C-alpha cells in the first residue's frame, strides 16, 4: 500500500519540487561562490572575516527553502483526497491512522529528494573550493538540519491540510489572534500589574516557539556551512 501512495504523491508533487531540488543543489554552491584562497594564498585569506560575512548573507535562504519544501510536499499530500472528497481513502481497507501514517511516510520520502540534492550540492561546494587552513566545511550537518527543518514544516502543514479548510482557518486565525490579543492584554495589564511590564504573553510564546525544545528551534539554529 505504501508504494502506490508514494507514487501518487510523487506524481502530484514532482513538477512543483523541481525548482526546490535545483535550489537545494545550487544554494551551497552560491554560498561558496568566490571563496577560497587563490594560488598565492594572500588577500582572500587575510580578509577571512569579510569572507565569513560574505557567505553569511546566503544563510537565511536555507531555512526558507526548507519551509518551502515542507509546504509543497504537505499541500500536495492531501490534494487528491480533497479533490475527490476522500472517496478513495474511505474505500481502502485501512484505519484512518494507518492511512495517515502511510501518506505521511510517502511525504517523508519525498522530503529526502531535495535533502539529498542539498547534501550533494554541499559536498560539491566543499570540493570546489580550497579553504584557508582553519576553515572547515560541514555539508553533512547542514543537510541533516535542512531535512529536519523540511520535515517539521511538512508535518505541521500536513496536519493542517489533513483537516477541513474551515478547521485550518480556525487554527490559523486563532494563532494570529493569540499574538495580537496576547500583546494587547499584556500591555494593558502592564499599566496596573508591574509583573506584566516584564512579561508579555505574546513575546514569551514567540520565544518559546523558536527556543530550545520549541517546534521551530531547528529553523533558528546555526545554518553555517563553513566555520572554523
Amino acid at each position: 500500500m505504501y508504494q502506490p501512495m508514494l507514487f501518487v504523491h510523487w506524481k502530484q508533487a514532482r513538477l512543483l519540487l523541481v525548482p526546490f531540488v535545483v535550489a537545494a543543489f545550487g544554494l551551497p554552491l552560491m554560498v561558496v561562490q568566490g571563496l577560497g584562497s587563490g594560488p598565492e594564498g594572500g588577500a582572500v585569506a587575510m580578509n577571512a572575516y569579510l569572507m565569513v560575512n560574505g557567505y553569511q548573507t546566503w544563510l537565511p535562504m536555507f531555512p526558507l527553502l526548507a519551509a518551502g519544501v515542507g509546504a509543497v510536499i504537505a499541500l500536495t499530500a492531501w490534494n487528491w483526497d480533497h479533490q475527490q472528497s476522500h472517496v478513495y481513502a474511505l474505500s481502502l481497507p485501512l484505519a484512518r491512522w494507518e492511512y495517515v501514517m502511510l501518506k505521511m511516510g510517502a511525504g517523508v520520502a519525498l522530503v529526502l529528494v531535495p535533502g539529498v540534492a542539498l547534501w550533494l550540492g554541499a559536498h560539491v561546494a566543499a570540493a570546489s573550493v580550497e579553504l584557508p587552513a582553519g576553515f572547515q566545511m560541514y555539508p553533512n550537518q547542514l543537510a541533516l538540519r535542512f531535512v529536519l527543518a523540511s520535515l517539521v514544516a511538512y508535518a505541521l502543514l500536513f496536519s493542517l491540510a489533513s483537516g477541513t479548510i474551515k478547521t485550518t482557518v480556525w487554527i490559523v486565525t486563532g494563532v494570529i489572534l493569540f499574538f495580537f490579543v496576547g500583546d494587547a492584554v499584556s500591555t494593558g495589564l502592564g499599566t496596573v500589574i508591574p509583573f506584566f511590564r516584564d512579561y508579555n504573553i505574546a513575546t514569551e510564546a514567540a520565544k518559546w516557539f523558536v527556543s530550545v525544545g520549541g517546534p521551530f528551534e531547528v529553523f533558528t539554529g546555526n545554518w553555517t556551512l563553513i566555520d572554523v
Partner: protein
Amino acid sequence: MCRPRPAGVLAVALLLWAGAPHAVLARQAGPSPQSMEELERRLEALRPRLQEAEAAMEEALARRRAEQAALERQPVDTIRVGPLRIVTPPDQAELAQELFSDVWNEEFGNVSGSPSLERRFFTFQWRVRPDFIYMVPEEDGGPPVSRVELHRLVDRTRARARARILGVLSEALLNDFTFQSPLRRWLGRGSLSDLELASAYRELALSAEASGVHRACLSDEAAACWASAGLGYDGSMATLERWFPPEVRRQLAHEGVALSNRFVRERLPLDPGTEEWACVEEDSQAACDRILQANFGWPRILPYVRGVGLSAVEWTLFWHALQRGGEGAWGRTLERAETDDPGDLLTYVSGLSADELAASWQDAVVAHRPLLYADLATARWSVLLWILVFAAFAMRSTRWRST
C-alpha cells in the same frame, strides 16, 4: 470690521519694493571710519546685556529641563555591587543586584580601586518597554552615567543581559586610562564584549592560512601567541621566514608601507632608492623582508592579518593577565598603564613571564574552540517529537469523523 482693499495693499507693497534698492544702496555705501568706531563702541556696550540675557536663558532652560525631568521621573532605588552604584526601578532592584553581582564576581574580581567606576553611576532596566531613568546630566553637574537599559524583545536571555552589562562595565573601566596610554592604544577599539575566548580562537583560526604566526600559536608555540597579539618577537629573520611564506611577507611589508603616516596622510610618493620604494615599486623580496623585520611589532600590521577592527586576541590576553595576577592586579595595571609597553605591563600585572602568560592564555583559547557550524545538538530529538505530535494531530480528521 474694515478689511484692507487688495489694490491698497498692492500699492503699499510696490512703494516698499521701490524704496528697498535705495536702502540697499545706502547700506552698500558703508559707514565712515568714525561711525565704524562708534558702532564698535556701541556693540561693546551691548555685550554685558547680551551675556546677562544668555545667562537668564540658560537658567530658564535648566529650570524647564528639571521640571520636565521631574514630570518624567519614576521612583528609583540605588543599590551597590562592589564599587558599582546602580540606579534602577525598585521592582528591578533584585534582578539588577543578581545580574551585576554575577558579572562583577565572575569577571571583575581583581578590579579594585578603579577611579572611573567609583565616580560613575549605572542605570539598569530589563523590561519589555523600558522607561526613562532620569539622571542629572554631566553638563548640569551630574555624575557620569552608563546606561544598561535592555529591551526584553531584543536582549532575550540572561546571558545576553550579562554580556551587555559586561560590555558597559568594561567601557566604563577603560576610562581609567588615557587615550594616549600604550595599553589603550594596544587594546584598540574593542571592549570586554570581546572577552570571549572563543572569539579569540576564531580570529586566529580564520587568518591561519595567511598568517603562520597564528597557525603556530594555535599549534602550541607560546612565542607565536605573544607575537600574534602584537607584543613583539625575537627579531630574527628566520622566525619570520618560518611563520610567513615569501608572498605573504611581501604583502605584509606593502601594508606596513601603505599604512605609514607619510604615505597615507600626506600622500607623498615614495622616494626612489629607498627601502620602501624597492619593496613596493620593484617588489624586492629582500627590501620587503627588511621592512617587515623592522616593523613586525608595529601594531597596525598584525590586525590587518587578523582582520581590521578585531581585538579579541588583545582583550582576552589582557584579561587573562589580570585574572592570573590575582588580588591587586588592577592596581598594578593603573600604576604602569600610562608608561609601560603593553608586553611589559602584562608580565608585571600577571606576575608571569611572557612565555608562561602566552602559554596559559593559549591553553584557555584552545579549550574554548567554538563549535558554531550547523550542528543540531539536542534539536534533533525535539524535532522528532514535534513531527510525531503533528502526525498525531493529522490522524484526527474532522472530515472523516463527520462522514
